């Protein structure tokens, strides 16, 4: 069956390769620095002990003070899951590096986050709106929309 890796465990392993990336952790998730998301993603996927090949979902939550990106990950061979999170600050033009290069599955979800939440992903090959039309004013899922 499936085991959920605790945040502390994950943070421990991530620190070996990327000492600066890990900011914080609790028992379910680990927070990483927004600039290092793609590096962390690469490390998570390529580390044979972690082997997170499968990206379940990329979510963005608007906590008004900051945005939070939540990555739900699964390893098919090792059969464990993990949650990686990252706080993105700034409301005008928040940006985060894209993980499309690591997981193609993030493609549409990152476009959707840009469309509805307004977080721009650098390095994404096709950073266009997906649900709404180009030129739509604002990002509807933000808490200050409407």
């Amino acid at each position, binding site marked *: 069956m499936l085991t959920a890796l605790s945040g502390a465990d994950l943070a421990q392993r991530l620190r070996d390769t990327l000492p600066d990336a890990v900011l914080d952790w609790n028992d379910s998730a680990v927070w990483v620095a927004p600039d290092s998301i793609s590096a962390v993603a690469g490390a998570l996927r390529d580390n044979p002990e972690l082997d997170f*090949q*499968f990206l379940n979902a990329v979510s963005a939550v608007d906590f008004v003070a900051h945005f939070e990106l939540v990555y739900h990950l699964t390893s098919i061979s090792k059969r464990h899951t993990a949650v990686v999170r990252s706080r993105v600050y700034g409301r005008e033009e928040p940006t985060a590096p894209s993980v499309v290069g690591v997981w193609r599955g993030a493609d*549409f979800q990152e476009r959707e986050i840009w469309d509805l939440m307004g977080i721009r992903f650098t390095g994404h090959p096709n950073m266009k709106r997906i649900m709404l039309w180009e030129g739509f004013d604002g990002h509807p899922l933000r808490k200050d929309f409407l």
Partner: protein
Amino acid sequence: MTIRTEPMTVNVGPQHPSTHGVFRVRITFDGEDIVEVEPVLGYLHRGTEKLAEERNYVQIVTLTDRLDYTSSMINNQAYCLAVEQLLGIEPPPRAKYLRTLTAELQRIASHLIAVGFFVQELGAFGTPLMYTFRSRERILDLFEMLCGARITVSYMRPGGVFADAPDDFWPALDQFLNDFEGELAELEDLLLNNEILMVRTRGVSPLPPDVAINCSVSGPVLRASGVNWDWRKMAPYDAYDQVDFDVPIGSSGDNYDRFWVRVQEVRQSLRIVRQCIEQIEPGPARLELPLVLRAAPGAEAYGRVEASKGELGFFLVSDGGISPYRCKIRSPSLINLTITEHLLIGWKLADMIVSLGSVDINMGEVDR
């Protein structure tokens, strides 16, 4: 002399007989060969995630019906599991069995549609579709018996199901299961080894497992590529740890395998339904909960199920109010579309439609 060809861009959809709703792909053809593909989404965007932020936990159940409207039961289930995780409650065993049973019936119905339209897109003039709809109609009748609606069921609630099944549901279910065996055998006779279907689908648009996993593909499409990843086995929810079933997997991930996996999953779902009928025991079908639920502030939950299209997940964040602070829907149809380019480029126009059909998307879920 060389023949000069000129690429031709065609908008397939949003109004097209076989794009599963308002799906639009901008395709550049060279003759009949596909050179470039660009899916254009958003024609059915209803802002479900935003709507969910303004409704209380029970009201959102009605929104989930409308995501993938061919498998509303499973959507209900995914959402209710997420809310239950959020609240830290567990439904009574009878409710678990009822959920499993209805979810599997819904999976049969959804796969029947997928299979029927798949063959329809191959060019069969409606006959297999009509046969699958005939069986699906019986399932919808059962749903009407359970909850008064056929498509937008709103059957499940956080903490169970809205009410126990009526007494005449069980004989009707038995009757359906008996009849369906024959109908399924007929369908398999008609389709499974049909030579025309074979030559049209075998070896067309194969999807290697590493690409599938990297593109976060889930559900029958992933399993057709030979990865036996099924959340019902991996992280059993509701009563799936009590029932015994096999996971059908394909070998090359071509269109035929995706079709074959769905047909076999119908058989496995039948097995699960039969086991549920045997194992279900009397008891309450719903927890006594207040009408308006509240979760602890800061609580989060990611509830996922193996829906008929793939992994359906609800990521709920609570701020202690009566409605979720954020409700993210991880919809399998949208993410399965990531492989569109991989599936289509280099194949012919006729294969394009079939490959899209084999992924089995549902626009209600893609655009939300």
